[in-house]
C-alpha cells in the first residue's frame, strides 16, 4: 500500500473540491460498499456477543433487542473457552496441521513448477497441468464420497487390497493414527495443481535473457535454477507465505469435517480444529456467547499472525512485504 502516497506534484493537481464526478463514482460503488458494510463490517461488531450472556428477553423481541438486554459478563466466555478441555487440543491441531500443509504444499508446488518449466514437451506439460487442476474444482463433499469408496471398512478399495495381500483390514474411520497422513495427503493433492501453475506462471515471466547470459557464462542447469529461477519466484513465494501464515488459525472446514464424515467421536481429538468446533457449536445448543468467544479468538489470532508475518518479512527483506 506504500504506493497510495502519490507524489506531491500529483497531489497538487488533484482537485480539492467534491465534484459531480465524485458523486457519480460514489453512487456507482454504493451497492458494493453496502455489501461490505453488511457482510464484512457488521460481523466485526459481533464481538460484543462474546462479552455477553445472551438470553431471550420476555416479550418475543428480535435478536438485537435480546442482545442488548442481555448482561455483560466480561471475559467469562473467554475464560470458559480457554479452560475447557478442548482448547489446547484445538490449538495444537489447527496450528500443526497448518504448518504441515504450508511446508509440504509449498515444496510440492515449487518443485513441480521447476520440473514443468524444464519439461521439453510443452504440450505434455499443458496436459499434466490440466489433469492436476481437476481436484481443485471438486468440492470436499464430492471428495468425501471418493475417500469413502477407498476407506469404508467392509467394501472399501483399500481394505480389499490389504486383504488380497494377506493383511488385516483396517477400520479407517476409527483409527486415529492414520488421519494426520490422510489429511495431509488430501490437502496436498487438492492444491497441487493450483500451486504449481501459479509458480510456473511466475517462472515463465522471468526475463529469458538472464538465462541466455548465464549459459554464455557456462552456468549449469542447477546453477541457473539457484541463481535465477529461485530468486525470480521469491516475491510470489514470500507473498504466499505471508497469506498462509495469516490463515494459520483457520482451517479448510470441508477437509476436516466432510472427509472424516462429520468427525466421528473416535477421531475427535485428532481431526478437530477451531472451525469444526465452532460449526458444531452453532449446530448444537451451546451458549452463543461461548461460541462467539471461540470465533472471536480465532479472528484476532488470524489478524495478529498476518501482521506479524508481514512485520518479520519487512525486517528481513523490506521489498517483499505485503502491506
Amino acid at each position, binding site marked *: 500500500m506504500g504506493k497510495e502516497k502519490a507524489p506531491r506534484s500529483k497531489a497538487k493537481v488533484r482537485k480539492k473540491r467534491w465534484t459531480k464526478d465524485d458523486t457519480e463514482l460514489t453512487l456507482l*460503488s454504493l451497492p458494493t460498499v453496502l455489501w461490505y458494510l453488511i457482510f464484512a463490517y457488521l460481523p466485526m461488531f459481533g464481538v460484543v456477543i462474546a462479552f455477553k450472556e445472551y438470553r431471550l428477553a420476555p416479550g418475543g423481541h428480535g435478536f438485537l433487542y435480546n442482545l442488548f438486554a442481555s448482561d455483560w459478563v466480561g471475559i467469562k466466555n473467554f475464560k470458559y473457552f480457554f479452560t475447557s478441555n478442548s482448547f489446547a487440543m484445538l490449538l495444537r491441531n489447527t496450528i500443526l496441521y497448518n504448518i504441515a500443509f504450508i511446508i509440504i504444499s509449498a515444496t510440492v508446488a515449487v518443485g513441480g513448477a521447476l520440473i514443468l518449466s524444464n519439461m521439453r514437451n510443452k504440450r505434455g506439460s499443458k496436459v499434466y497441468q490440466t489433469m492436476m487442476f481437476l481436484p481443485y474444482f471438486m468440492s470436499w463433499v464430492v471428495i468425501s464420497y471418493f475417500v469413502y469408496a477407498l476407506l469404508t471398512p467392509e467394501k472399501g478399495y483399500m481394505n480389499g487390497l490389504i486383504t488380497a495381500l494377506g493383511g488385516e483390514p483396517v477400520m479407517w474411520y476409527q483409527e486415529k493414527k492414520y488421519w494426520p497422513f490422510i489429511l495431509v495427503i488430501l490437502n496436498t493433492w487438492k492444491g497441487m495443481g493450483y500451486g504449481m501453475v501459479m509458480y510456473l506462471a511466475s517462472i515463465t515471466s522471468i526475463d529469458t535473457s538472464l538465462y541466455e547470459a548465464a549459459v554464455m557464462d557456462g552456468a549449469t542447469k542447477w546453477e541457473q535454477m539457484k541463481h535465477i529461477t529461485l530468486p525470480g519466484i521469491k516475491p510470489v513465494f514470500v507473498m504466499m507465505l505471508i497469506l498462509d501464515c495469516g490463515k494459520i488459525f483457520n482451517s479448510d472446514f470441508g477437509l476436516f469435517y466432510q472427509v472424516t464424515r462429520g468427525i466421528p467421536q473416535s477421531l475427535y481429538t485428532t481431526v478437530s480444529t477451531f472451525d469444526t468446533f465452532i460449526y458444531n457449536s452453532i449446530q448444537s445448543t451451546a451458549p452463543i456467547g461461548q461460541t462467539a468467544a471461540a470465533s472471536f479468538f480465532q479472528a484476532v489470532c488470524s489478524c495478529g499472525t498476518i501482521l506479524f508475518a508481514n512485520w518479520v518479512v519487512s525486517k528481513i527483506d523490506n521489498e517483499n512485504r505485503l502491506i
Partner: protein
Amino acid sequence: MKDKEIKGQSSFNQIKTSTNVIFNIIFLILGLMCIFPLLFVFSISITSEEALRMGGYQIIPQELSNAAYVFLWNERGTIFRALFMSVLVTVVGTVITIALTTSMGYVASRSNYKLKKLYTWIIFIPMVFNGGMLASYVVINNILGLRNTIWALILPLACSSFSVTICRTFFRTTVPDALIEAAKIDGADQFRIWSSIVLPISKPVMATIGMFAAFGYWNDWFQASLYIQDKNLQTLQSMLNKIQENIEYIANNPYGGLSLQQYKMGMPTESVRMAIAIVIIVPIACTYPFFQRYFISGLTVGSVKE
C-alpha cells in the same frame, strides 16, 4: 564438435532426454492420481448393487448396471429441482458478483476520486480481519433473516477483497485516464462510462472473476448446510451432503407397483450416491479445461503487489 553444437541449437540449454522421460513419468502418475477419483466414482456408479455388495468397490466394474441412473431418472423431480437451484444460484450469483466487483474495482482505481483513500481501507481491512464464522452466521441468520432463502446462498459469497483487488489492478493498468476524460467531454456520466466503455474492454478480468465465482457457487455446500433446511431450496451439493447419512432422503416416487417401503429397500443405494457425485463433477470436468487460462491470468494478476 562445432557442428554438433550448431545442430544442437534447438535443444540448447535443455535437460537431458533421460531426465525428461523421468519427469514425464512422474507427472503422468501425478496427473492420473488427480483424475482417478472421477473414473473410480464413475465406475462404481455403473456397477450393479449386487456386485458392490459382494465384491466391494472396484476400479473395474464387476457387473455393469444402469440401475443408479434409472433410479435418478425416476426421481427426476427431486434431481432436476436441485439441479435447477444449483444453476440458478450459480448464474444469479455470478452476475451479481461481476457487477459488484467490477464497479468497486473501477471506482477504487480512479486516481482523482475524492474518497480513494477511504476505499483503499474499506477493501483492505477485511483482508486481515473478519468477525469470525459465528458473527457472520448471526448477521445472516438473525439480523438479516435470510435463513431458507436463496439469498443466503448468494449474497455472502458475492464479493471479496481479493477479486476487487484484481479488478482494481487491472483497471489501473488498462483503462487510461485520457479515455475516461474523452468520454466525459462527450457528456457521458460515470455509470455510462463504466457500463459502455470499461466493461467491454475488461472481458479478461470479468472472465477471471466470473469463473472463480461460478465454480465457487456451484461447489458450495457450506452456506446451504448452515442456512437451508427447506427441501425445495436444496442444491445438488447440499443434497449430496444430506444423503451422506440418509440416502432415503431422495426416494419418494415408487414405481412398478411397489410400496414406498419396498422401493426404499430395493434402491441401489451405493451406486446412486456415486451417480449424484458424477452429476456434479461432469459439468465441472467438461468446462474447466476451457477456462483454465482465465484462472491462471487471475492468479498472476492477483499476485501483483499493491
